[in-house]
């Protein structure tokens, strides 16, 4: 049974999702049990992964490049742990809400299962199939409260996500045309021969795959779906979306750059992709920060802040040295924890105050001081102030930028952190000021939750904030989790 762990991690939420459709009473028990089972399965693999080994599983008994394999190595292990951890907290956060029926938990479990499928698979077409399944579940989750704005946001996301994944599929088509196989490591072996004979098709496939993933990651010109989708969704879904769904696109991009185009012949692709990632990261960073300054809606502000942090992760990836990759991957973990905590707090605050306008939330610190305290700590992490984990990852990326000779990047990241401080402190100041004025607008009926701060909800926020402080005070914990992933990526890069 221990050999079958990779497929059991994917199948366990899927089985629970379909069993949940048969019975109405056991939905929450099935949901939490299946995710906890998957987390336990992943942790049993942890000793093997952290020592640098890989776990490979062949589906259906077909070995080699003929069949679909699941590979758990350092990078997959890291991302899947973030996905399932945040998923479990999202399910626990959604428990007190009576209006979420079976369909909501069904869609959550399907999206978590297909996320793990994207992360674990070693077959590039299978990655596309699981990514489409994840996108379909997420479109339905955003449109779950069937109000007008959520339907519009979901439709917008559907069109842009569909176009993005079509680009991805066309890129896969070009790769298949040149190499004749679909297994990622096998493509990496056969690609240099094809590169010498038809250079343009290889470059075309790389550009198509990068553009497709760029639409899903929401880099600057292709970000149009993100503010609507992440702000109009229900709060636990927003936390899941901002926390991990955007990072799945980053995972696919890392896989394609480092595992497919990984040998020495592609040095031009890797070095130009580093430059493009740095430029796009800087533009996305500044764009997200400046747009977040002018937002009146709390969840839209948090969505633009996500664009901000994605820019920082892209800069870290673009620098490409060991410090840069460590900082970028650690920032993925930190962003999931902090943005999850922020969206959970925002959900409670919006439900209690009845409005999403930042001005309407004023005086909230008198009603629930613990939630506001958690909000303050999480936003300090997003800005990057010392005892929190956001400081460690931003510091690593700035250090990597200075070491690689791009000191101007460190200055830009610090400037953007100052703008981040400006908009978060504006919200905190409103939270501490007097009673709200009567003319606050932007009440969306779909967001009214029955209970505001409940036992489940507050404890998920406390767990996330505790993780934030823990990773900030003991950064060696987080860096040791990231180290196998970084060493795996660096072993692929040209020396």
């Amino acid at each position, binding site marked *: 049974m221990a050999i079958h762990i990779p497929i059991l991690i994917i199948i366990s939420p899927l089985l629970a999702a379909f069993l949940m459709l048969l019975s109405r009473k056991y939905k929450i028990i099935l949901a939490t049990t299946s995710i906890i089972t998957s987390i336990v399965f992943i942790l049993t693999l942890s000793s093997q992964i952290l020592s640098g080994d890989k776990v490979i599983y062949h589906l259906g008994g077909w070995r080699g490049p003929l069949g679909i394999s699941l590979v758990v190595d350092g990078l997959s292990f890291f991302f899947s742990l973030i996905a399932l951890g945040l998923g479990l907290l999202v399910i626990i956060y959604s428990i007190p809400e009576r209006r979420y029926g079976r369909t909501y938990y069904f869609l959550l479990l399907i999206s978590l299962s297909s996320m793990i499928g994207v992360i674990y698979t070693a077959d590039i077409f299978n990655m596309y199939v699981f990514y489409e399944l994840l996108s379909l579940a997420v*479109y339905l989750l955003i449109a779950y409260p069937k109000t007008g704005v959520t339907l519009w946001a979901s439709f917008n996301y559907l069109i842009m996500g569909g176009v993005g994944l079509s680009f991805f599929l066309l890129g896969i088509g070009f790769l298949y045309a040149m190499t004749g196989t679909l297994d990622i490591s096998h493509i990496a072996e056969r690609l240099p021969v094809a590169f010498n004979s038809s250079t343009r098709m290889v470059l075309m496939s790389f550009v198509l795959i990068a553009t497709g993933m760029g639409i899903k990651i929401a880099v600057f010109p292709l970000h149009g779906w993100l503010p609507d989708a992440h702000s109009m969704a229900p709060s636990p879904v927003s936390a899941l979306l901002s926390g991990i769904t955007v990072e799945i696109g980053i995972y696919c991009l890392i896989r394609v750059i480092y595992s497919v185009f990984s040998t020495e012949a592609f040095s031009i692709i890797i070095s130009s992709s580093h430059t493009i990632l740095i430029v796009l990261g800087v533009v996305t960073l500044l764009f997200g920060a400046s747009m977040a300054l002018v937002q009146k809606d709390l969840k839209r502000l948090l969505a633009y802040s996500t664009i901000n942090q994605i820019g920082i992760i892209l800069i870290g990836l673009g620098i490409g040295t060991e410090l840069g990759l460590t900082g970028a991957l650690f920032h993925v973990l930190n962003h999931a924890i902090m943005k999850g905590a922020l969206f959970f707090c925002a959900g409670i605050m919006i439900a209690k105050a009845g409005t999403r306008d930042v001005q309407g939330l004023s005086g909230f610190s008198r009603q629930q001081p613990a939630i506001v305290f958690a909000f303050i700590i999480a936003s300090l992490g997003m800005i990057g102030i010392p005892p929190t984990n956001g400081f460690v990852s931003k510091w690593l990326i700035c250090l990597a930028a200075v070491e690689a000779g791009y000191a101007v990047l460190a200055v830009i990241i610090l400037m953007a952190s100052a703008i981040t401080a400006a908009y978060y402190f504006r919200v905190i100041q409103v939270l501490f000021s007097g009673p709200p004025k009567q003319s606050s607008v932007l009440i969306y009926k779909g967001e009214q939750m029955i209970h505001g701060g409940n036992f489940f909800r507050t404890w998920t926020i406390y767990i996330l904030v505790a993780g934030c402080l823990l990773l900030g005070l003991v950064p060696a914990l987080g860096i040791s989790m990231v180290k196998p992933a970084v060493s795996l990526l660096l072993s692929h890069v040209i020396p």
Partner: protein
Amino acid sequence: MTPINISLLVFMIGLYGVMSKNNLIKKIIGLTIMNGSIVLFFISIGYREAGLAPILEKGTTDAIPTTILVDPLPQALMLTAIVIGISITALALALIVRIYAKYKTLDIQQLSKER
């Protein structure tokens, strides 16, 4: 005009439809055209000169054929891609039905103003 070039041309036509048409249903039709062009692309990649259909005749005793067959793998991949295209179209049409019931218009300029 090889089949690969034609499929890329149809892909661009679909992309133009998604980007510049104002009606929501025309955008979905553009997305479906893009998916169809990718199917055409994959199938035309798998073509071999003078190849037969990849079906074993009844009564052959060996499982490995000796004549030239076209590549069956892109055809199997495209079955999956067609299923995914159908799911996206069905979901998008369900969303359009509800959007129309709420806003009484399918024009994207009016919808983005009303939001």
